[in-house]
């Protein structure tokens, strides 16, 4: 029933694609695959849209000067190096060519294979998911019970996905781009590997330049956008998708990843009006965070794990996003705030000892209370070790201030951002193993792999291949090179 035809690109190149009956259809476009499934071609549901000069302009800009997945040298975003382009190319499904015939359309890379389910993904009879894409609410709504355990990943993988999403969105926002329709459908996730990919990039909004076309997806639309759909397009009271509304959608996604529930769906109820009108209010003007500390009217009574269990950084971000910022867009944390808070929290992750624990990892933010919130297990087989990192105050030699922490467990890797205060764990950082900590015969050892200038608390230089014995209260320079940190050891 399918047949192969050719599309002509803007530069005259011809590429084949397979026409199938009932192609996958989104709100705006429908999709055909290439014969080898390495790329897809997409056309507009309403072909007039493809003839709109503004849309054509926008898409050309997205493919070219706004594109973080190719280097500046090759026509991509300004300042983008080959290394950064490589890093970001698997974070998005970024369109890379314009089709001019048979009608206006775009070419995108196909999602990597790990974003498709296979025949082993479902664990129930009568549900065959082979070939379906991994929309995030497969994993965050009650339908997750149908997936095989192996697909579900664990809390650490969900943290990894959250960081990856925050970073991808931060990259877009710093370039001045808003995605404008971030949702469970437009961010595919693979909890097995802890990766995500942002898709449907072509509805990108450049503030002031390219106005948005979509309102968004149910559950992810910012309250002010939903609330003001009663005004016509062009009315100054109407709020449209933009960077600040992305920040709402992204916070909803991260909340869902980490806690497998929606942050605004709770028991709050407005009786005597139809469901549609009620949700228009409950997701719009009357939206209320289910964990709002002051107004508990939307709080479900079975909240076992809460934002408090995710440590102070993430708790603070969610409170900002869903209490202060819910109806005040300018108070929403930025994607950069999210990336930093999540990365800081990553360093507080601790493996749960309970072999039955489904989440395997939790945030150990209080050394005196090492309890996994997911399974309730209290860590008792070992002492807890923490590194407090201090950096030297600029221009004030010998004055050190605490700026981050790391909860240490057996075999934990130490990276450059733990060694030097001027390195942040982002796309630019080297990811080589610098050192690691092991528990050996009841002693905790920091083994140097390739850090120069490491000096133990007793004043000895520790070359690569040698170790430092860690004792409670010890303080040592992990590197005496420029920007090298001072580490204080706490063992309980």
């Amino acid at each position, binding site marked *: 029933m399918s047949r192969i035809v050719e599309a002509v690109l803007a530069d005259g190149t011809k590429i084949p694609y397979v026409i199938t009956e009932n192609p996958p259809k989104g709100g705006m476009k429908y999709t055909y695959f290439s014969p080898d499934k390495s790329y897809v071609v997409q056309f507009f549901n309403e072909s007039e849209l493809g003839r709109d000069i503004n849309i054509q302009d926008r898409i050309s800009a997205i493919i070219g000067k706004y594109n973080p997945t190719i280097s500046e040298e090759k026509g991509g975003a300004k300042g983008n190096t080959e290394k950064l382009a490589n890093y970001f190319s698997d974070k998005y499904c970024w369109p890379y060519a314009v089709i001019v015939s048979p009608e206006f359309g775009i070419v995108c890379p196909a999602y990597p294979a790990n974003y498709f389910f296979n025949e082993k993904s479902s664990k129930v009879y009568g549900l065959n998911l082979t070939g379906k894409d991994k929309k995030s609410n497969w994993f965050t709504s009650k339908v997750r019970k149908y997936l095989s355990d192996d697909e579900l990943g664990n809390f650490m993988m969900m943290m990894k996905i959250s960081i990856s999403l925050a970073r991808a969105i931060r990259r877009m926002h710093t370039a001045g781009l808003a995605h404008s329709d971030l949702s469970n459908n437009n961010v595919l996730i693979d909890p097995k590997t802890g990766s995500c990919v942002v898709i449907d990039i072509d509805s990108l909004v450049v503030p002031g330049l390219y106005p948005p076309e979509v309102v968004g997806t149910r559950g992810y639309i910012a309250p002010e956008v939903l609330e003001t759909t009663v005004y016509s397009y062009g009315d100054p009271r109407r709020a449209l998708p933009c960077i600040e509304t992305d920040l709402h959608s992204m916070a909803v996604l991260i909340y869902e990843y980490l806690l497998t529930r929606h942050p605004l769906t*709770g028991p709050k109820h407005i009786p005597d009006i139809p469901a549609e009108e009620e949700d*228009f209010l409950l997701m719009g003007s009357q939206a209320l965070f289910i964990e709002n500390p002051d107004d508990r009217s939307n709080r479900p009574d079975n909240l076992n794990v809460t934002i408090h269990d995710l440590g102070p950084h993430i708790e603070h971000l969610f409170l900002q996003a869903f209490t202060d910022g819910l109806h005040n867009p300018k108070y929403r944390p930025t994607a950069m705030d999210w990336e930093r808070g999540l990365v800081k929290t990553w360093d507080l992750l601790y493996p749960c000892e309970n072999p039955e624990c489904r989440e395997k990892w939790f945030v150990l933010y209080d050394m005196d209370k090492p309890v996994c919130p997911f399974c309730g297990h209290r860590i008792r087989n070992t002492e807890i070790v923490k590194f407090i990192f201090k950096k030297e105050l600029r221009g004030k030699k010998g004055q050190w201030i605490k700026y981050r922490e790391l909860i240490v467990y057996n075999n934990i890797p130490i990276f450059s951002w733990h060694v030097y205060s001027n390195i942040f764990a982002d796309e630019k950082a080297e990811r080589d193993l610098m050192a690691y900590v092991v528990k050996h015969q009841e002693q905790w050892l920091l083994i140097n792999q390739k850090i120069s200038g490491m000096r133990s608390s007793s004043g000895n230089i520790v070359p690569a291949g040698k170790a430092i014995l860690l004792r409670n209260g010890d303080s040592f320079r992990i590197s005496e090179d420029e920007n090298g940190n001072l580490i204080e050891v706490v063992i309980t």
Partner: protein
Amino acid sequence: MSDFIRRLPVYLLLDCSGSMHGERIEAVKQGVKSLVAELKGDPQALETAYISVITFSSTAKQEAALTELMLFKEPELKASGATMFGRALSLLMDCINTEVRKSTETQKGDWRPLVFILTDGAPSDVEDFKKCAEQLKQMKVANIIACAAGADADTKYLKMITDNVLMMNSLSSGDLAQFFAWVSGSIKMTSKSIDAKPGQALELPPPPQGFQIVP
């Protein structure tokens, strides 16, 4: 948590009169089967959509009560007899009344049900039909999409029930398959976009090729 999730009730009203006998009823059966399989592949639809099948021939019968997708079993459909369409509408109203959760002081209600009607003829019980169609249109309890299949289907009756009327020219198994694929697309779209703006016209994907929207 699941208590706060609204359901999206979907009713399929299928004409099983004598004229549907043979290849056509087989295609409808196949269509229902692939519709359910397709919806199961969409997490939002799988979580929220509940399906019921009502057939009408010399009588009207609810073949499958409103059921979540994972528990839904395709009914054994047979075609014979007359087209008691009016009776089917009356049964539909009863089912909506008893099965769809209403918003109460303490409970969140279901989404407005989606009703898809497929018929290849005209009602045998015209008087009953007119009365029920009028009632149904007045009650505004559901979003109804009616499809007239083949040359003998009379769209004027469908227009009495709803403004969303589609027409497909042939009753080939290919067309019926396309119809059910379109139904699944419509359900998926509705499960994602409900509440965007209440009171707005229902947003549906463009109908498949060869189908006309009856103005």
